[in-house]
């Protein structure tokens, strides 16, 4: 009780302070992060996007964020806090925030929400995602060129469609160059755990892979690859600093362009719910510089990137078989998005049993 009184005594001063500072008309754009904004991977990429919004629309908007928000009841509270603190547009940047976002959105119909990588929308909830698999196709091609043994190691997080899609795209890319190419998969069952990811990397290298790629967030696998003298691909952020002699390229999440576009629409009063799934051509993901590879491989990678951007090449195009050899796509036939978004099978060439 005394605590309350003590604090109340200081309140009057603060309210005056807050009122003076509160004399602005800027729109508030807010972000909820699952990790730390300096994680070097997933969350950092979102925070760079947030900074881009500040830079480009800085005179009209103000941004705020909450970091290290655990998925679950804490997320609901964090999102509600933002909604109540006057945020007009809130980006929730982890799949696990989906139900919390939808729940709070019902309570605050005037606030707009955007949820990354989910599938539930509402009049005031949009979803957005990035076609990461386009980058993985390019990586697969590079891997097939660079690998002497014809086997790559893949550190995967959870067996959800998003991740399975990435594995398949990598294999399809690799086998377009070397039809006998194989990959080995280790499920780390985490997005962010340097220890587990490093262990997975070591296990894969011990099994004889000479190229490493990851669908987890830390630079630990890159560091292990550097120590063991093999090549690797970065994930979510450019990880060249962790492996200057190691990184071939990285899929870099560049959410900024999307964030700016949506914030602008919000300012103009033209925001509408969508399920956006942009790719390389829209700039929502970019490839880090192609390094540590011969010029001909680099030229191939750049050519593939250009073809994907122009729409000439779609990674999931037949003829393609499923893992057991059953036909999936006919010659020239491309997969529709719905199949990709619910993907729960491997294509030919994956040396792993999909956890079901």
């Amino acid at each position, binding site marked *: 009780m*005394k605590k309350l009184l*003590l604090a109340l005594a200081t309140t009057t001063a603060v309210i005056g*302070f807050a009122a003076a500072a509160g004399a602005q008309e800027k729109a508030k754009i807010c972000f909820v992060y699952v990790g730390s904004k300096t994680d070097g991977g997933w969350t950092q990429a979102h925070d760079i996007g947030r900074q881009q919004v500040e830079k480009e629309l800085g005179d009209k908007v103000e941004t705020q964020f909450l970091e290290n928000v655990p998925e679950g*009841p804490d997320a609901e509270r*964090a999102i509600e*806090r933002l909604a109540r603190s006057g945020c007009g547009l809130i980006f929730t940047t982890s799949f696990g925030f989906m139900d919390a976002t939808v729940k709070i959105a019902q309570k605050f119909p005037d606030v707009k929400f955007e949820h990354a990588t989910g599938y539930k929308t509402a009049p005031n909830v949009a979803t957005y995602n990035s076609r990461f698999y386009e980058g993985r196709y390019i990586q697969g091609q590079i891997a097939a060129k660079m690998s002497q043994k014809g086997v790559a190691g893949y550190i995967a997080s*959870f067996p959800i469609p998003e991740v399975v899609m990435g594995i398949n795209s990598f294999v399809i890319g690799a086998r377009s160059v070397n039809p006998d190419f194989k990959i080995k998969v280790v499920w780390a069952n985490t997005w962010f755990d340097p220890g587990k990811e490093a262990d997975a990397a070591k296990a894969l290298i011990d099994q004889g892979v000479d190229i490493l790629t990851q669908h987890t967030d830390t630079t630990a696998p890159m560091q292990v690859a550097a120590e063991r003298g093999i090549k690797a691909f970065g994930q979510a952020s450019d990880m060249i600093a962790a492996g200057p002699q190691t990184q071939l390229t990285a899929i870099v999440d560049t959410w900024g362009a999307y964030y700016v576009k949506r914030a602008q629409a919000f300012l103009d009063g033209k925001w509408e719910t969508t399920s956006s799934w942009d790719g390389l051509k829209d700039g929502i993901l970019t490839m880090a510089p192609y390094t540590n590879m011969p010029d001909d491989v680099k030229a191939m990678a750049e050519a593939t990137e250009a073809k994907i951007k122009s729409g000439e090449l779609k990674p999931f195009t037949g003829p393609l078989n499923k893992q057991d050899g059953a036909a999936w796509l006919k010659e020239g036939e491309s997969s529709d998005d719905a199949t990709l978004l*619910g993907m729960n099978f491997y294509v030919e060439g994956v040396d792993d049993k999909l956890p079901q």
Partner: protein
Amino acid sequence: MRIELERRPKVSALFSILSPFIAFALTIVFGGIMFALLGKNPVAALYSFFVEPLSEVWSLHELAIKAAPLILIGVGLSVCFRSNNWNIGAEGQFIMGAIAGSILPVVFYDWQSPLMLPLMLVLGMIGGALFAAIPAFLKAHMNTNEILTSLMLVYVAQLFLDWLVRGPWRNPEGMNFPETRTFGADAILPEMLASGRTHWGFAFAIIAALAVWFMMRYTLRGFEITVLGQSERAGRFAGFSSRKMIWFSMLFSGALAGLAGISEVSGAIQQLRPVISPGYGFTAIIVAFLGRLNPLGIIAAGLVLALTYLGGEAAQLSIGVSDKVTRVFQGLLLFFVLSCDTLIHYRIRLVRERFAALKTDEAH
């Protein structure tokens, strides 16, 4: 020269009451200095920590939600600690309670009945108690150290939950994500008031605290707990069995932790996930000691700790400090409270070791 903690011959009644306030004042001062060094307005920072979360109704509800499991577990632990049984594994009992209580809504998800919820709560308590029975059995009959066994069993529970939600209990409609089905309407612990999200878990916590307070103060059982905790030998002369007390205190605290687990899952999360607790079982140990093992004190301590979590979030937004800074501030508060409490019972004495000093001189 070295520093020694020496037990005070008499505990000052005045300082026993003043100690939390002194600790709070010290936290304010040092926290204020820290915020000032970071270039933030210390008054604004402290305001967002301690006042902002209390100034709105929704936020008070969130406070109750966050405090409920801490209080419920802490109250159970106080019985254990008072009787000199060191159950460190409440986190595991919390998880096993949640799992046992979730059997009905996950496995028999078609079943709809008003009996669902009461049965879940009972199963949750049984689950937590049974899991606590393992270290209780090992201590009572094999004389093992319950600190070690109960702590190690936490990892067993965590990994068991992890296996369940990735394996047999995974939601078949959940896009392969590691989580169970969401609970049906009958399986959800309802909200207590129309004004916010607080569910009945908070009421359970308060009722449990009052009941334990009554038991400790007015019943023979309470007397037995205190006597056996302070002197096992004296307890034996009074005809109390320390073996029975091991069983009672461990099962009791396990049942409350299990109830906290199923309440949290049913009231707040509404499905099982690989991780359902941000360490409530461990934080509750701090809460129990912060409340001086007194059930009413534990209510206050649980609320204070919950307040620092909420305040930490508010401070991130209103003054833009990082999540790390708010944790440091939380640490400051705990440090001062616990050290002030220590200094009620002990005093610091500087012991000059002239003899030792002479010896080192000679060695040179």
